[in-house]
């Protein structure tokens, strides 16, 4: 069955403060959505990510490996987490993405996986 990456996007300076009611509401919503994915068999994998400022970029060129601080893309929006789901087709994946967007209260990018 086709698999899709559903990624969550927010501002690069976004920090989730779990003490706030807003964050707790979203965490509960996402947990309920994850349960639903597992029950329906759509679940493959999912994870939340630490802020983009915690990222390191590693490059290899002519046997030399170099590292730079920060995320690869210097954009205002960064990926904050993702799901990998399996779905019969695009319309099913888009429906899941709609529910992911409601649960996380963030825009979701849907991207088909190769293979």
């Amino acid at each position, binding site marked *: 069955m*086709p698999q899709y990456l559903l990624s969550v996007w927010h501002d690069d300076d976004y920090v989730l403060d779990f003490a706030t009611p807003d964050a707790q509401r979203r965490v509960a919503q996402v947990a309920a959505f994850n349960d639903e994915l597992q029950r329906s068999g759509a679940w493959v994998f999912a994870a939340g990510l630490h802020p983009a400022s915690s990222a390191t970029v590693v490059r290899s060129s002519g046997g030399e490996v170099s590292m730079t601080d920060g995320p690869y893309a210097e954009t205002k929006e960064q990926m904050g987490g993702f799901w990998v789901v399996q779905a*019969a*087709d*695009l*319309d099913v*994946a*888009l429906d899941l993405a709609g529910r992911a967007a409601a649960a996380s209260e963030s825009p979701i990018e*849907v991207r*088909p996986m190769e293979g």
Partner: protein
Amino acid sequence: MTDTLDAVFRREAGRCTATLIRVLGDIDLAEDAVAEAFVIAAEQWPKRGIPPNPGGWITTTARNRAIDRLRRESTRVERYIAAHRMHTCDTEPDPTPEDEDLDRFVDVVPDDQLRLMFLCCHPALAADAQVALTLRLLGGLETSEIASAFLLPEATMAQRIVRAKRKLRHNHAPYRIPGAAELPDRLHAVLASIYLIYTEGHTATAGVALTRVDLSTEAIRLGRVLATLMPDEPEVIGLLALMLLTEARRSARVDADGSMVRLADQDRARWNPNLIEEGHGLVRACLRRNQPGPFQIQAAIAAVHSDAPTATDTDWSQIVALYDQLYAIQPNPVVALNRAVAVGAVDGPSAGLDALATVDLGDYQPYHAARADLLIRAGHTDEAIAAYDRAIELTATSAEREFLSRQRQRAATTPHGPHG
């Protein structure tokens, strides 16, 4: 034999492609096969005559050629199997081809055309890609024709179409008619796409029209196909009525010099009575159904205009009421602008300007043109001239610029004072 190969192609290409996408499971494969079948038809039909069911003949020939070729090129068999991921959810997928399949006649299935319309107008595609794909696959137009219709380089249009098809394939977009829950939204995308094709053809009536494919005619053809396939969707009928009633005025929109003629100044004897009659019939059918939607209301407005033997006979208060109804469904500034123009016709230019006061459409040419007209009628000449200048600045076609320049000229030389 009145049917020419060209006429058969215009009528059948989209239907055949639609069925072959389901049978073969791949857009590119279906397009190639249909093109090949029409080449064979061009060789055989002049000698043997056009078969009684040309669409079925093309579809069967195309299917057989495609399977033959898949068998010869083993790598493409894999592609064929992979391609079957574009499966239909509401029908049984065709099994892998067997030898006896080649004897079976494949007829076009009308629902396939609906599936293809929903695929081409999938909301995951941008509006310009939806339009391009609809014209390519359902209209059977060449990429070069679509490119010139939109005044774009052919390479740009080719890339747009290739990317759209690739996106649908990579994403495993289903080939199906959306279920009841999604249907209103998905259908709206199809209607919007057809209307966009229509308006592109309509606004291009001037100047370069002769060198362009007739997009308005193609949009009406698609609208008729959709109305045949979904006769119980009132908005489908509303869109067709709107296009027909607008089309009825087409030859009166431009004068002998090629400049635009406003609705109020058009020679109504040049309106097409057959299209008006057909459009009115459809509007009445919509009214009886009483499930109003934006296209039906716009069609009703067009019907009120075409009901009036002269511009001064127009029932503007009914038009204001229809715009009120439209604004309740679609509260956007363009609707508010049109409503303000109608208010100006009923209650005078000052009332029209009051209705326009809350509308903000800075870069929208019709806003400045309509405002200029209300201002001149209210006697505010200097402001009117400024509004005409802004409108002229924002006008793309020479016919409209010509018209606005003449209006501006008249405003500048007419003695001041209200005369609306």
